[in-house]
């Protein structure tokens, strides 16, 4: 993308900080919800080939639980909260305080609870982003799927699809304690959103 041809490192740093602030609020929200400490790794920001994005969560055929929200407003984009099936089970146990159903199937109640977790994370992520940039941003109603990562993540790449074969991904890993991952939070702003975000944050855009 031309926008990133100058001051690439600086712009990536800005996006990393944006991700950091958003995810920090989301981690606090998750921590309150589960009533236990939730930490997060420093977000990574990268242009990544479509082919490799699912590699972040185990590969295209890895079965993941994914909550998907579309970001609407001045800087539209896509948000995914992705968990392995074990991580989803752990979250449900923590949240609902009963043993989640064994096996691969989820009840309506469990899917609804997981959607709500995704909704709360995305809501706190976006509201801190909106505060930071002054741009109005709001998530759509969450949608949930349990399926192959490759099949799911395509939805976050369609806007980039018309421009090339790479997407800009802001990836945050949530950690329980210091090591055990709770899930991935992917923010993939639409290509045209970057210029608006940079302008709103006072980053020079040629």
């Amino acid at each position, binding site marked *: 993308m031309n926008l990133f041809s100058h001051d690439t490192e600086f712009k990536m740093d800005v996006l990393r900080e944006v991700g950091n602030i958003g995810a920090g609020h989301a981690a606090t929200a998750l921590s309150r919800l589960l009533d236990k400490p939730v930490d997060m790794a420093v977000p990574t920001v990268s242009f990544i080939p*479509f*082919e490799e994005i*699912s590699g972040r969560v185990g*590969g*295209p*055929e890895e*079965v993941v639980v994914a909550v*998907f929200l*579309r970001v609407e407003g001045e800087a539209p984009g896509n948000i995914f909260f992705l968990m392995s099936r074990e991580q989803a089970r752990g979250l449900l146990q923590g949240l609902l305080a009963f043993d989640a159903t064994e096996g691969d199937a989820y009840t309506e109640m469990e899917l609804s609870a997981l959607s709500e977790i995704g909704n709360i994370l995305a809501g706190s992520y976006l509201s801190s982003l909106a505060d930071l940039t002054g741009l109005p941003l709001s998530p*759509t*109603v969450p*949608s*949930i*799927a*349990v*399926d*192959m*990562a*490759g*099949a*799911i*993540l*395509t*939805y976050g*790449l*369609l*806007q980039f*699809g*018309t*421009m*090339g*074969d790479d997407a800009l991904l802001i990836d945050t890993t949530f950690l329980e304690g210091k090591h055990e991952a709770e899930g991935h939070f992917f923010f993939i702003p639409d290509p045209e959103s970057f210029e608006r975000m940079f302008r709103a944050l006072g980053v020079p855009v040629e």
Partner: protein
Amino acid sequence: MNEAVIVKVGMADLNVAAAGASLRTTGLGSCVGLTLYDAGRRIAGMAHIMLPSSEIAREGQLNVAKYADTAIPELLVRMKDAGADLSRLVAKMAGGAQMFAFAGGSDSMRIGPRNVESSHAALAKWSIPVVAEDTGGNYGRTIEFDSLSGVLTIRSVQNGVKEI
């Protein structure tokens, strides 16, 4: 039996296989996996189509394998180079799911069905019959196409294995 050779087809990619090799593409959601087959010469081709039309492309260097309308002509060229008789080709397709259901359903959410429609339209333009398809639904698929038998094997998390 010898270990079968599997040729990988990536996202927005296409390839051709013959002599008993198989073509494979993983994690099809809204994307369409389209195969062409010359049964007489046992030559197979596969494209992993991501978007319905190259008219919406804004990229400098067009990746023809990405769009239904450009992937099919390119695959025909590759099939011809591999020695296929283009007048005998038949097509199969899988994928084009709608993974997430939103109330209202914006255009980008309907991308799966649109990919299927465009693939049909492009094949009709080249008068290539679609002999079998497993499209739609709300689940992901991994497909493998055997150049020896012309059988397309479809795997999904929810519905197991199916052959068309």
